[in-house]
């Protein structure tokens, strides 16, 4: 029988539809994997933002991947039981974001303040001489910034509690 570890490993191939360098596992949105019997697997997910329009699509991608792995009975549900927060991104996830040109979210300690975003480190040159242009960006999970040193606009992945 397939093990939970093998499922987790297999799911690492499922990438965020908007950030192709980042897996859903590293994003921290897969909150539970349960092998329920021969060829039967249950997966629990949670969205980064309540209004994330990609969550249905991501459920489908997870289900497809499991079927690819030979699982015939697949159940994928989305719940708020263990809500996502940006600290749930793995170290590898943070690196992936940076590689994609997105500033990773600053680790928070249960509280997010405007100051936390004000001088986000530029993912291109590493400078902290940056300013936040808007707490909103092209997707709900991103903010917009400008680097005064390398003179490039960049996006950041928002810290969320």
């Amino acid at each position: 029988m397939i093990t939970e570890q093998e499922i987790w490993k297999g799911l690492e191939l499922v990438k965020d539809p908007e950030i192709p360098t980042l897996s859903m596992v590293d994003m921290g949105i897969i909150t539970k994997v349960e092998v329920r019997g021969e060829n039967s697997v249950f997966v629990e997910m949670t969205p980064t933002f309540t209004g994330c329009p990609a969550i249905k699509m991501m459920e489908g991608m997870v289900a497809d991947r499991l079927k690819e792995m030979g699982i015939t009975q697949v159940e994928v549900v989305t719940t708020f039981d263990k809500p996502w927060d940006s600290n749930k991104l793995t170290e590898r996830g943070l690196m992936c974001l940076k590689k994609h040109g997105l500033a990773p979210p600053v680790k928070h300690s249960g509280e997010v303040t405007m100051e936390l975003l004000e001088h986000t480190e530029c993912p291109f040159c590493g400078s902290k001489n940056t300013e936040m242009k808007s707490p909103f960006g092209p997707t709900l999970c991103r903010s917009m910034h400008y680097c005064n040193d390398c003179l490039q606009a960049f996006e950041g992945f928002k810290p969320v509690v």
Partner: protein
Amino acid sequence: MNTTAIKELLYKMADDLLIIGHRNSEWTGLGPILEEDIAFSSMAQDKIGQSQALFQLLHELGEQEPDTVAFTRNANQFHNAQFVELPNGDYDFSLMRHFLYDVADQLRFEMLANSSYEPLAKVARKIKGELKYHVFHANTWIVKLGSANEESKARMQTALNDAWNYALGLFEEGDFENDLKKEGVFAGEATLKQLWLETITPTLTKATLTIPHENTWEPKLGGRKGIHTEHLEPLVEEMSEVFRVDPSAEW
């Protein structure tokens, strides 16, 4: 637990979010600068998603599917406060409403994060984190425009005066306030209103704006009971137009 009381609470919150979300979306493509266009569009997406999560809780309590509830009711079956259905007006009014509404909503969801009704508490714990960004955005603009120049200050003060009594209507009490309090579901509108006043006052002071004098306060009530301004019906018609054409369409 008193399910009728919980449903009433969920309906008014979900409807507030759905309607303000729709109003926010009306700025898409029309925002005064690109960043603001994106901000109101993002907030629209957040709010409509949050309303969907609350409609889902209602569905779990036996109400119809979220889409059916959102798109097939008539205006007089909506429980949103009149405040959120008012037209966007100029950007000053939209920003002021955004500030007054979002601070109230953030506090509401912070209170509900400790609700004894666990399904709602779970959703509230998620939503309150998201609303932080809405309040950041609102605070920034209120302070910036309130203290920028004579024109911007005058416009923001007028917007505050125009919005005020409608904003007070957000705290219209329902028939089940006591049940909700007694059962630890929600600490009540009066408590929320007090917290809201304490929270908005320092920001408005920083923005050099003045809250209308208390003896002029006349909360615009009725929204929670289905009594609305003439602005809601056309909004609902527009919002549900596509759904009504083909309710079974797959997206």
